[in-house]
């Protein structure tokens, strides 16, 4: 049997989550060691003997056996998960307890438990996202640094700190308490939303990394939807948003690896299965009175998804959705996107008005698509010289070669025009 794509990465999160549940959150490092050990063993045995029939089960069984060794060796010196400690002390109950903890449904709950624990309000959102990626998605510090265009040192510091905070929390989040669950859920949704966005709009140059971040965010969102407390309208809306946006991923980059704006994409390349899935999720999200930012963003994405040609886009509806979004979760980025939609709907002059009205625009000072949008609007009203300046400004802010090429092309497009 051929190994499955990203098997180690995916199983890593499941194994760490379950082992931490057994060992107790204070022994997270021990859980990580056991997992690393299981991978090393797989590397050695599979290399020599080939990949086993059921690779995930093989890994889990190896982790389980290692866990038993560690528990027997360390049980006098350490305390483990408080609610399991007594059961782990006696040989009579040790093996059956571990067996139970490694049941599929128990592992699934452990992943959820870990996800909610990683999104502790004491940690910054950035730290939460990094921790989720590290613990539940098996990303190394270097892989996270490359995805976030950061340095090894900065990410390591962030993760070390977050792990300390996690260890201090004494026990993992209790996913069986409904009130606590719904209180923490928004933070978890937010972290997964940020993770997805980092993949979708983020600064990383590596296409593969970006798609993986999106996929991981979607996978973890699906885990929440498997839990009865997690199936809230907002979670459905978040999942819808991810599906609808992810549907466009195949068209975001053209054959020569160049970035394409939404307006220039070959819409026949959009993944219609994802679109259908997204629309279905959006329908499921439309219950109750709760209107989250994910509902609005998913609705915007659904208007794009339904327009087979860019001319068919219902820009008036999209502008009004951006109005709503500005009320629920105002930000300069939302205002910028709103200005673009207004320009599509009522022309570049009106778009410019809205652009100039963006509040706290200084937060976008290093965002290349802020000046680039201005360039685009000026370009559309024939002010090529002004547009060129803005594109050049954007080019100087480009965060990766893909953006650089894209903006460089926009700069050069202005050279053919007039001198205004």
């Amino acid at each position: 049997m051929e190994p499955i794509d990203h098997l180690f990465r995916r199983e890593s999160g499941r194994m760490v989550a379950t082992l931490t549940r057994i060992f107790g959150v204070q022994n997270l490092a021990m859980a990580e060691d056991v997992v690393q050990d299981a991978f090393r063993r797989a590397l050695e045995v599979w290399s020599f003997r080939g990949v086993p029939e059921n690779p995930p089960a093989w890994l889990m069984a190896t982790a389980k056996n290692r866990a038993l060794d560690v528990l027997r060796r360390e049980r006098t010196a350490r305390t483990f998960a408080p609610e399991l400690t007594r059961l782990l002390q006696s040989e009579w109950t040790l093996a059956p307890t571990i067996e139970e903890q490694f049941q599929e449904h128990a592992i699934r709950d452990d992943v959820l438990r870990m996800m909610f624990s990683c999104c502790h309000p004491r940690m910054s959102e950035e730290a939460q996202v990094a921790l989720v990626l590290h613990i539940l998605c098996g990303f190394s510090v270097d892989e996270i640094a490359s995805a976030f265009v950061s340095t090894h040192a900065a990410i390591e510091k962030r993760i070390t700190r977050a792990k300390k905070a996690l260890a201090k929390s004494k026990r993992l989040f209790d996913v069986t308490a409904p009130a606590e669950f719904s209180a923490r859920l928004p933070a978890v949704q937010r972290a997964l939303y940020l993770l997805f966005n980092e993949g979708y709009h983020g600064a990383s140059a590596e296409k593969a990394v970006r798609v993986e971040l999106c996929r991981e965010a979607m996978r973890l969102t699906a885990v929440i939807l498997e839990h009865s407390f997690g199936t809230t309208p907002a979670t459905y809306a978040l999942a819808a948003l991810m599906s609808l946006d992810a549907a466009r991923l195949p068209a975001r980059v053209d054959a020569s690896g160049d970035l394409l704006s939404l307006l220039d994409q070959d819409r026949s390349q959009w993944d219609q299965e994802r679109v259908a899935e997204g629309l279905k999720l959006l329908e499921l999200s439309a219950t109750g009175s709760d209107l989250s930012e994910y509902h609005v963003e998913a609705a915007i994405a659904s208007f794009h998804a339904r327009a087979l040609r860019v001319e068919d886009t219902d820009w008036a509806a999209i502008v009004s959705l951006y109005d709503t979004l500005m009320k629920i979760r105002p930000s300069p980025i939302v205002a910028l996107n709103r200005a673009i939609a207004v320009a599509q709907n009522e022309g570049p002059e009106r778009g410019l008005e809205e652009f100039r009205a963006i509040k706290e625009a200084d937060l976008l000072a290093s965002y290349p698509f802020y000046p680039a949008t201005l360039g685009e609007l000026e370009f559309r009203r024939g002010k090529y010289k002004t547009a060129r300046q803005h594109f050049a400004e954007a080019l100087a802010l480009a965060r990766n070669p893909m953006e650089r090429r894209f903006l460089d092309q926009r700069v050069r497009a202005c050279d053919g025009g007039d001198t205004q």
Partner: protein
Amino acid sequence: MSEFTYLFRGRNTSASPEEMQKHMEKWVAWFKELGAKGYLKDPGHPLEGDGKVVSGKQKIVNDGPYAEAKDVIGGYIVIEARDLAQAAEISKGCPILEVGGSVEVRPIQKLDM
């Protein structure tokens, strides 16, 4: 045809799950290739990282192998090749070379006279 043993030295100690999986996949592919081309005589064994070293007339037993990670033998296989030169050539496909390890190629002595 003669038989040779490959001794793999060096262990991959710190890598992300994704890197470890990629590395494992390369090994699996390499073993498959050795088998398909008829080189693989005996798929040998990976070896545990710890062990004992017994030495001297006093038969002193030490925890071992006290070598640096890159010198520890991680496993062995037996292959069949025309001569030592070809055996060495074939070993160049071993993924361990990409992670700082080495392959020691040793002809197996023929015992039949």
